[in-house]
């Protein structure tokens, strides 16, 4: 019994230590076991797990060294016949291997399908494109129709080689531009801060100096005259300093407005070719009526009662508004001629009625 007790307490201590280790390292389970060599983290606290994006089977670093140092070889996991290379092994970023895989797939898809909104005539078409891309991504992640999806991707890649490259270059350029802008801003901030610090230090120095001078002046024969002299000097100095500061601030401002790097001015800015139009809150809606001009007064004996009926008017009813609306409706749509669509268009999407019509009869 005592023996057992001792061993169990020793184990508990070891587990606690291992757990602590694990926490310190910030990695997951303390009793993690390499699925290939079965060595556990408990025995080897420095064990690191690696995955290969070919098959995402996890194994420890030493297994990777052991198996793949000689060159590409088959994955040691039973039933996996992928050939893996050592250099492709990397640390897992996400705890969930599915997430890891999805992120990889998305990265890959994003590289190929890098069309932009301006490549499409309208937002709708761009959205259709995004949906199709998402379908492809979904298929890859969930292994649906793998072969046909891959074929699709390859076909797209082949036919859009030029535009993919172009768009990639564009994105790189944009990223560069953003980065340069950010660096420039940071530099400007630093300089402004330095200037401020300098000003503060100078002011402090002047103050101390002024104090010392005052004391000296008070020690002199006629303190009043000396003090006045010192004060005058200090004022002169401070106004000079201020002027100096203002000049430097102006310089800084000018530097901020000028491009810091020559190439920034030469960069193709991500512009849309269309010049900005003035904002139109009603989106081109025209107030003027095409078919009629509204008159001030219409003969309608039926409405005469309402004109003077307090119970109607109290609620805010306006006869003129009714008239305007009625006249408007008399012509709203008169120039629309409803016709059959051309034959090639589907007449109506029939999928709408099927589920409802197939429901249990009432």
């Amino acid at each position, binding site marked *: 019994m005592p023996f057992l007790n001792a061993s169990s307490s020793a184990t508990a201590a070891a587990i606690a230590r291992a757990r602590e280790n694990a926490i310190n390292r910030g990695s997951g389970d303390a009793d993690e076991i390499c699925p290939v060599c079965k060595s556990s983290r408990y025995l080897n606290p420095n064990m690191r797990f690696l995955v290969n994006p070919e098959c995402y089977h996890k194994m420890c670093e030493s297994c990777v060294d052991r198996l793949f140092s000689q060159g590409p070889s088959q994955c040691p996991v039973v039933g996996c016949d992928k050939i893996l290379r050592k250099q492709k092994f990397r640390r897992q970023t996400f705890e969930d291997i599915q997430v890891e895989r999805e992120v990889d797939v998305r990265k890959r898809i994003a590289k190929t399908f890098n069309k932009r909104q301006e490549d499409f005539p309208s937002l709708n078409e761009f959205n259709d494109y995004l949906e199709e891309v998402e379908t492809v991504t979904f298929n890859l992640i969930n292994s649906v129709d793998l072969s046909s999806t891959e074929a699709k991707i390859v076909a797209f890649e082949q036919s859009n080689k030029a535009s993919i490259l172009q768009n990639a270059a564009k994105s790189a350029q944009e990223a560069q531009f953003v980065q340069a802008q950010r660096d420039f801003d940071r530099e400007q901030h630093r300089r402004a801060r330095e200037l401020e610090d300098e000003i503060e230090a100078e002011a402090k120095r002047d103050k101390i100096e002024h104090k010392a001078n005052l004391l000296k002046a008070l020690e002199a024969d006629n303190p009043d005259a000396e003090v006045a002299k010192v004060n005058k000097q200090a004022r002169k100095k401070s106004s000079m300093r201020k002027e100096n500061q203002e000049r430097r601030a102006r310089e800084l401002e000018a530097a901020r407005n000028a491009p810091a790097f020559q190439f920034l001015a030469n960069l193709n800015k991500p512009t849309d070719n269309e010049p900005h139009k003035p904002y139109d809150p009603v989106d081109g*809606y*025209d*107030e*003027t*009526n*095409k*078919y*009629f*001009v509204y*008159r001030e*007064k*219409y*003969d*309608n004996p039926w409405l005469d009662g309402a004109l003077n009926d307090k119970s109607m008017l109290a609620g805010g009813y306006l006869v003129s508004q009714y*008239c305007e*609306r*009625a*006249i*408007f*409706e*008399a*012509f*709203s*749509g*008169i*120039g*629309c*001629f*409803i*016709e*059959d*669509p051309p034959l090639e268009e589907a*007449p*109506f999407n*029939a999928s*709408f*009625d*099927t589920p*409802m*019509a*197939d*429901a*249990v*009869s*009432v």
Partner: protein
Amino acid sequence: MAEDQLYTSTTQCKTWSFGPSTLSTIRQNTNAAGTRSIRRGWKRARVEASSANTPLATTPIPSSTPTPTPTPSIDPAAIPDPESLTPAEELTLVHYYMLRLIDMSDVFSFPSNVKSTACVFLSRFHLHHSVQAYHPKHLITTILFLATKTENHYIPLSEFCKRIPKLTPELVLKHEFTVAGGVRWDFDIKHPLRAAEGGIMELLTSLANGVSTNDPGLVALKERLAPNPVRRVQDAHGKMKSYLTKEALVSDVYYHYTPPQIFLAALWLADKDVAEGYIEWRFGENATMGRVAKKRKKDKKAKNPEEETAGAAEEAAKKGPALAPKLIPLVASCAEMMTGAREYEKIPVDELKRIDKKLHRCQNPQKFLGAGSSLGSGDNGNKKLPDEAVTGVKDKDKGDEKKRKVEEDPFGGTLHGRD
């Protein structure tokens, strides 16, 4: 362009306007879907019936069932599938119930916009939902009540139910969601009613306020309607209203024409001269579109004749070609379609009974296959009020009870046994 632009942005124009061939295609598709569901129902019932007829599973048929149950010796497989309704028969039935809806609305003396909305709801609902799947008789009270709500003509539900015998609030609300979804939540319907009022108002005002020499179209119209143009328009107005609240509803004009066109067609039926004269005045070659005052000002400004002609040409280009040559045949065809609605009033009762009988057979396979308790809740064979037939509450047999439970459960019953 404001007027047409506004109409083209409505759901009525975008989702509920079709050319004639599109409309008939949709109706055929809907009919086919309904027929498919009938076939499925019969297939299911046949399986149930054959299993019920085996000696091991003899379920006693409750004596309370009023259905004429055939003897169990009949082989369910031997009974052929029922003949399904044709699109034309479905349409006949829908139009018949539209007329009933109009009658019912008159009982309540609802305003014409409620009446019209209710009819349009019924028509639109059955455009995408076959009569074979949803019998209109179960829906008309719901639709009428929904129309009072969407047209802002409030009536308490209890009051509403009091006026129709054997109607309960539950029955009205039961199908409300189905109907609302069936009209695609498009509750705002552009009726020609207010358009008609506006048009007549403008016409009367123009006629009464003396003829301005600037507007030859108006002079011509006045001559055409002599001796008493105002009186004539007023007469036509009265007649037109009745066309708008019946013929316009019980036909397909709401799908094929816009509200002003329907209004003109109704005016055409009421008095052809008024309608034609009005169109020629407003949309003819020299129509001023009511811009009399503005034009005169322009004429004064333009001093030399060259400038004047240029101005006129510019105005003409802005106006586009005259609408009248296109509008007159269109309105005439719309009027013709509206007169076709009268045929639906003349349909003999025997014909309607025949269709309903056919429908009854389609919807209640259990009764004709002898599957024991009737699972279909509708009891169309007995000439009960439409509203009562939906209840099924009175029947205490297990099947009905079970179905009711399933329907009452907000999340639906178990998936098992519901196809």
